[in-house]
Structure formats: C-alpha cells, structure tokens
C-alpha cells in the first residue's frame, strides 16, 4: 500500500517545524519527561532507556515519526477497502468512533478469539475484520496498511495499563510463550531471558539491554527507520542469535507476544513509541 500524498506533505511540514524548533533551540519542556510514571513494580518500559531527546520526541505528536502511521490508520478507518464487494463498508460502519470503541483494545491484545479457537494478535484481529466483514484481502504482515491500522487502533489506548488475559482459554498459549521465552535457540544458543531478564542494564557494545517490553508496539525503530510490530522485533532478535525465525503471525510468535506483553502488565500503552 502506498502512502497517500498527505503523509509526505505532513512529513515535510513536520520536518520544517523540527528545523525551526532546532534553529530557535527551544529547550525540551521538563513536564514531558515524566520518567517516574514508567516503571511499574520493577517493570521498565523501553522508554526509560531512551535519551531525554528521544523521549521528548516520542511525546511530541508533531515530532514523533510514528504518528504518520497513526494518521494513515485514521484515514483507513473510514475508508471502504473494496467497493466491489457486497459487504463494502468501512470500519466506522460497525465500530463508529475509534476513540470510544477502540479504547482499551490494544491493552488487552493478544487475546483468545472464540471464533478462531486460539489466541490472536491485534494484527490478526484487524485482518479478520477486513476479510470477513469487509470482503477485502488481508494486509500482509508489516505492510504499511497493517502497521497503520494497528498503530491507529493502539493509539486509542494511549496511557492505559497493559492488561492481557493469560488464564482460561489463553492459558495454554501463554505457557507455550513462556516456555519459548526461556528456551535457548540459534547458533549462539541464547534465550530471550538471558538478556532481557537476567542482564538488563548491561551493555552489548554501546547498546544498553532493555527489558524488551512491548507496551509501545508497533514502534518506530530508529535502526529500521520505519515502524515495526512486536513480532518483527522477535524475528530481529532471533536473527541476532542466528536462529531461524518463525513466520510473522505464526502461533509461536503470537504465543510469545502474549507472554512478553504480560511481562509488561501495568505498563502504559505508548504506541507509537520510538525505540533504538
């Protein structure tokens, strides 16, 4: 999916604003740097590992590059994806105002889906709507459209505490995710926990190891210069330990996403967060 022209216009505008701000050297406003709010019972959002400049950039809706995806998602929300279909309707047709209907949704995903019979990610849920309710083709994982939709829907839960359900029908998925988290893999033979649980705060070369929380996903990752889902981050980490990554949207990664999201229970939803 190509980004509509408005996106590039907005980017130019924001760049201009950023340049003006830099030229006039407005100091970063102190009240935006509310670090104390971010650790919850020892759980630390990736936000707390960022430089003060990047934290300020994340907080500023005009400077945060992830907001381009949120804006595109907002447009897609009221767009009919395929007018040739009998079910042709936009998200608004069923869900109305996202600010109300989608509030809190991202905080509780991944979640068990009764219709599917297993735990699904927010990405799956959005694609299920597209296929079943809109008669459209599903977005590819990590496509501009899917990232825009997940970013927009997640944005409606901004600052709400992460709270996924891991008991009942989600319990098996959760336990599989937990097992994967502590399982060594790859040529380097490392588990997620080796770095993100046992060695947080230590450095790999210059990079400080975070807790690997996903309360801000999808995130704008500076290394990628684009948005990415939590599952893209899992695949990136798997590559780093020379392990064969699972497919995006696979049950393995969705189980892991549920467990990792639970690790960050209580952390505020930050989408679109900026990460290194």
């Amino acid at each position, binding site marked *: 999916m190509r980004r509509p022209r408005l996106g590039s216009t907005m980017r130019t505008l924001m760049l201009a604003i950023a340049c003006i701000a830099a030229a006039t050297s407005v100091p970063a406003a102190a009240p935006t740097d509310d670090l104390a709010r971010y650790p919850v019972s020892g759980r630390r959002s990736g936000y707390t590992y960022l430089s003060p400049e990047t934290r300020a950039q994340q907080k500023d809706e005009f400077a945060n590059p992830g907001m381009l995806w949120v804006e595109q998602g907002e447009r897609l929300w009221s767009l009919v994806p395929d007018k040739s279909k009998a079910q042709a309707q936009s998200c608004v047709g069923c869900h109305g105002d996202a600010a109300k209907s989608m509030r809190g949704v991202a905080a509780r995903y991944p979640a068990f889906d009764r219709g599917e019979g297993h735990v699904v990610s927010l990405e799956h849920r959005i694609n299920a709507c597209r296929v079943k309710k809109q008669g459209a083709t599903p977005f590819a994982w990590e496509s501009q459209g899917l990232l825009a939709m997940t970013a927009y829907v997640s944005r409606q839960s901004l600052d709400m505490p992460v709270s996924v359900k891991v008991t009942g029908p989600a319990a098996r998925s959760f336990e599989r995710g937990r097992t994967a988290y502590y399982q060594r893999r*790859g*040529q380097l*033979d490392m588990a997620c926990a080796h770095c993100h649980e046992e060695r947080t705060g*230590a450095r790999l070369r210059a990079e400080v190891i975070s807790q690997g929380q996903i309360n801000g996903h999808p995130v704008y990752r500076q290394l990628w210069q684009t948005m990415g889902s939590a599952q893209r981050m899992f695949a990136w980490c798997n590559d780093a330990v020379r392990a*064969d990554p699972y497919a995006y949207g696979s049950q393995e990664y969705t189980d892991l996403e549920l467990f990792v999201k639970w690790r960050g229970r209580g952390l505020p939803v930050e989408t679109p967060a900026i990460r290194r």
Partner: protein
Amino acid sequence: MPALRFARLLVSVLPWVVFPCTMPAGAADALVPYRVVGDGIPAPLTDTPGDPRRGRVAAANSTQGNCAICHPMPIAELPVFGNLGPPLDGVGARLTEAQLRLRIVDAKRLNPQSIMPAYYHVAGLRRVAPKFQNQPMLSAQEIEDVVAYLATLK
C-alpha cells in the same frame, strides 16, 4: 523421470562414497575431536600453532569472535566494549592455554547456565538458522589463534 532423478542422486553422492574425505567442511562430524582434562583442553585442536596476530583480528571482528560485544578488552582501535562478560585484560595471566581453550570451545561444560556461546560445538542446538547449521562459530584454527592471542594478555 524418477529414474533420471535417481541417476542424479547417485552422481551427486558417488564422489563421497569413493572419496569420503571430500565431505564438506563444517559438517557436524567434521569437528576435530578434543579431550577435556580437568577444566581445560590441554591439546591444541590443530597441528599449526595458533597465531596471536590472526587471533587478535578474529577476537575483534564482529563476524568472527566478536568478543568485544560482551567483554572489555585491550584493543585500542575498537570504540566501545560491552560489559556482560568479565574484562579480558590480563586473562592470559589468570588462565592457562588449556583453560582458555575450553572456555572458548564450550564454556557451558564448566557452567551450564552460562550465556557465553560455545564457539566450537554444534550438537543439540535448537532452530539454528539454515546458513549456520552444523557449523561451529569459529574454525579449529581460529580457536587456536584466539587462544594464542588471549595468552598474550598478561
């Protein structure tokens, strides 16, 4: 068609049947066997003595040893070092070559919980990416080179 496929298979396998020593290097069974004595591997893995200069390069290189990603070490040209592992300054005075060799070959023999990768071990790994399957992280000669280099850090 099946006959043709079988013929192709035969042709591709034949050289290994006739010349078993031409098996591709890096296959699991191609690892040089070694013997652990105490907390070390006393015998070198190769006949060619380790070269400390090549070992220094392999230790610094991010596609070979990449030691500096976790260990502070005395390599002035590297801009920054990780701190997950202990500093390697003086490691040649603290450990013998045999001890260094085992710690690089398979540190988990000494501490099963260790995060340090085994650099000369391929068995029992889970979901290794296809292009790294059945290959040790360093060759036997590179292990010897790195051991020789670390032994100089006194």
